[in-house]
């Protein structure tokens, strides 16, 4: 469920690194550079990128609609299409037969067969109905924190990767220990934290 629902799951990230150059211009560049588009990727992915949080079909962001005072509001849209194995096999058989008739060859080499299979898979992926996933993102630019409305490992990985590609910034999940480092002042407190070991709560 997205952030605008009553209840949403979320991961909190700390941003490492800084935007170089004029801040909002660079952010805008990054949003547009990483806006949703069809992708050629291995596996089942057919599309990836940023869309408006309120409308997953809007990747134009008229009037920089993603800016909300100090926040950036986006969704990461990931489209995947799975080609059922037997459908692929069916098309492969038909195409192989057609190729052999055209070229007069008795059989394809394993390399040719592999290449044909890849090509067919890509074209069939585009014909299938994609499964559309939308994951909301809130970037608090004043505090260097990003909230991502999904806990799934795959979604998080794609998000972290795409954020880096778009903005040149690294996202680090704000683990308890890392938050602790931020909350403690003073060198000696941090040293104690570093040395902490698990205690047994059993009598």
């Amino acid at each position: 469920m997205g952030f605008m629902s009553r209840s949403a799951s979320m991961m909190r990230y700390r941003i490492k690194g800084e935007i170089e150059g004029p801040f909002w211009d660079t952010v805008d560049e990054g949003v547009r550079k990483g806006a949703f588009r069809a992708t050629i990727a291995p596996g089942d992915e057919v599309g990836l990128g940023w869309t408006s949080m309120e409308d997953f079909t809007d990747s134009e962001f008229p009037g920089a609609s993603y800016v909300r005072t100090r926040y950036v509001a986006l969704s990461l849209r990931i489209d995947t299409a799975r080609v059922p194995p037997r459908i692929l096999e069916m098309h492969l058989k038909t195409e192989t037969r057609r190729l052999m008739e055209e070229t007069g060859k008795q059989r394809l080499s394993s390399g040719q067969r592999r290449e044909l299979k890849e090509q067919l898979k890509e074209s069939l992926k585009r014909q299938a109905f994609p499964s559309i996933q939308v994951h909301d993102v809130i970037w608090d630019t004043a505090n260097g924190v990003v909230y991502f409305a999904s806990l799934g490992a795959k979604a998080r990985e794609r998000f972290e990767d795409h954020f880096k590609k778009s903005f040149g910034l690294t996202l680090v999940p704000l683990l308890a220990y890392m938050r602790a480092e931020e909350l403690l002042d003073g060198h000696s407190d941090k040293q104690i934290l570093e040395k902490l070991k698990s205690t047994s709560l059993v009598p």
Partner: protein
Amino acid sequence: MDFLDILREKAFLGREFLTWLWFKSDQTGGRIDVPGYTVVEVLFLDRMTLDLSDVETPQTVSIKGEQSELREGMAALKEGKKIEEARISLKTTDNDFTVTLKATWFSFGSFRTPAILPSSETEADEGPEGAFLEKAALIEEGMEIMDSLFAYFLKLRISDAWEAEELPAIRRWVAASE
């Protein structure tokens, strides 16, 4: 330490926080006076997962049910397990939230904030931005409450008072439960 090292070796910190929070909530009748912040009502609700963190094959005990059935959680604590995840309610005078706090990633499952006013009640020209800003403010407030509780735990955890007073009190609490 690199990220993976922290994830592997320091996950106990989140678990100890959650377990301490349960202890604290129980001891104070659910009203925790956080130093330098405010009184936060913390209640542990119907869902809890406990885990043996420092072993090769962690065992998970999942407990769902009424408050009283959380006593099974106590039995797990007695075996040395710590809370990996728990559904809790957090209330201040202004607002109330529920969340499933997950220790290993310090992440927030089904984080529920108070309702936002329907858009007809906000100014006509605010549109989605108004609702968004309200939600963002609520999320921030929820995080602030969580961080203040965590900071309270943290300062105790690194102080001498942990070994001297807090830990013995937690152990007595675990031992005393039926």
